[in-house]
């Protein structure tokens, strides 16, 4: 009875992880399959790197990847700057004019259905074109602007949470020791929120790198991001070179995430043991 109960939660967990990872595993396995019918294993000719080689010669995918990389990098950098400003103002300025609006505008994009964000941004760009003559045509620029506008919120939230988590008196102490507000920000606040900035940057990068819906609305002819290319390919069914591409991307991201998590964990452990040691020394 008790043994059965003790197994209940772990087996639920195992089931959950199987559900999360089996599709990814099958994606990876079939990327080495020789058959064009992605899901039928061609034992005679597999495993093969054929689709990886084809991928390297697929100019459409490569140029889309280059475009996406550029957009995502630019987006993440701009979003971190704007989002840090917004998060800092919300966490540290107390009451100021426009606070309510800023707070609402930083949280709204997080819950707004993508389809509405995409539609409204497209209508904005069309209106701007009519009124100002810019943007003359939609493409990389409009996609980047659209991505920044929703990424800012994520960075602002992360920065705000980080600032809420550390003691306000650190900044006051710096002021008290003679540092002016701008110096306090540079020498105390910025180093302390650096981890939040990094995760905000990575999050913004990923959001942009993955976005299909909003990009589709605001993109113009001839400016297809990588997710847009993949989307139009897989709408027609499975295709083995997408599997190869997916495998590359997933491996890359997984290595990064696992590596950084383990690094953080080790650092945390070292910090913990140093703190314990400091207490016993006394």
């Amino acid at each position, binding site marked *: 009875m008790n043994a059965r109960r003790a197994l*209940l*939660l*772990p087996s*639920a*967990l195992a089931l*959950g*992880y199987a*559900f*999360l*990872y089996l*599709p*990814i595993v*099958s*994606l990876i396995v079939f990327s080495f399959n020789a058959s064009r019918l*992605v*899901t039928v294993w061609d034992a005679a000719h597999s495993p093969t790197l054929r689709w990886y080689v084809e991928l390297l010669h697929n100019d459409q995918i490569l140029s889309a990847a280059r475009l996406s990389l550029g957009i995502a990098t630019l987006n993440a950098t701009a979003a971190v700057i704007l989002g840090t*400003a*917004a998060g800092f103002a919300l966490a540290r*300025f107390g009451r100021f004019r*426009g*606070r309510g*609006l*800023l707070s609402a*505008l930083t*949280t709204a994009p997080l*819950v707004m*259905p*993508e*389809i*509405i964000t995409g*539609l*409204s*941004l497209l*209508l*904005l760009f069309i209106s701007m074109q*009519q009124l100002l003559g810019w943007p003359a045509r939609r493409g990389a620029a409009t996609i980047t*602007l659209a991505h*920044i*506008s929703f990424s*800012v919120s994520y960075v*602002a939230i992360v920065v*705000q*949470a980080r600032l*809420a988590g550390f003691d306000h008196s650190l900044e006051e102490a710096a002021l008290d020791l003679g540092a*002016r507000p*701008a110096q306090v920000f540079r020498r105390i606040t910025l180093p302390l929120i650096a981890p939040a900035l990094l995760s905000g940057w990575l999050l913004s990068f990923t959001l942009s790198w*993955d976005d299909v*819906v909003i990009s589709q609305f605001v993109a113009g002819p001839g400016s297809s991001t990588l997710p847009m290319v993949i*989307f139009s390919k*897989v*709408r027609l069914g*499975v295709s083995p070179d997408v*599997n190869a*591409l*997916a495998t590359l*991307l*997933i491996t890359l*991201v997984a290595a990064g*995430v696992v590596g950084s*998590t383990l690094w953080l964990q080790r650092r945390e452990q070292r910090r913990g043991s140093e703190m314990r040691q400091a207490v016993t020394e006394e």
Partner: protein
Amino acid sequence: MTGGRPRLWELLERRGRALVSGIPLGWLSLFFLIPFLIVLKISFSEARLAMPPYAPLLVRTGAHTLAIHMHLENYRLLASDPLYLDSLLYSLRVAAGSTLCCLLLGYPMALAIARAHPARRHLLLMAIILPFWTSFLLRVYAWIGLLQDNGVINHLLLSLHLIHQPLVMVNTTFAVYVGIVYSYLPFMVLPLYANLEKHDATLLEAAADLGARPWRAFCRITLPLSGPGIMAGVLLVFIPAVGEFVIPSLLGPANQLMIGRVVSNEFFENRDWPTASALAIVLLLLLLAPIVLLQRYRRRELASA
């Protein structure tokens, strides 16, 4: 500490404050608030065959007079044409159903992680978050390979002689459920875990000490205490699921469209901007209550942090 420099600094700092809050505020107003107002405006305009394909709201009727043409026809159309109502109801149903499935699957997972050995929690959590960092689109795509008629699951079932004909799973509502549950599971597990992890283990010991069996202790202690976590998880899954576009496009039936797809079709294929805009507004109104609830929860979390 005399001379011109400190005063200059102070001036810059006062300006700096206004800049720091003003620039993001300006940006978000331009790229979020104004676009939304444009959608609202167009939803009240009359469609016509021109560029742009809608009539202006404000019309100059004389030298000093303006007329406002508030056109409610678009909203009346939404109410009268069963196509729109159907897809709205279908979207809500699918979102609610898949949210429930997410909860039923996610709750035991979150509980198991929260009760795991502290040293292992990091790793278990990372395994939940990891898929979130990898491409959403590619993960949904993976399910096509699993679910299609000659896909992995059908192959497996046929070779085990459990079925004799391949099951039709792709392009069905079932596949949409699977896709949504799969994609949004981390959004359910993470807030639940954050809540469950904070529970005081001695509460359960106290309940056991007072004679409650584990299942009863769970129902009377753990479950009620995890209310806020359940709320957050449910809202975080339900809200985006209603407007979901990619998953039904790849896995869903062709004759039953979710609302996101209908908006897109109205806009791009029928070039009916006013109807698309009105639909977007209706969708947002439907989601308003859950969004407000979620915001309230967020604010409380931030305040307690």
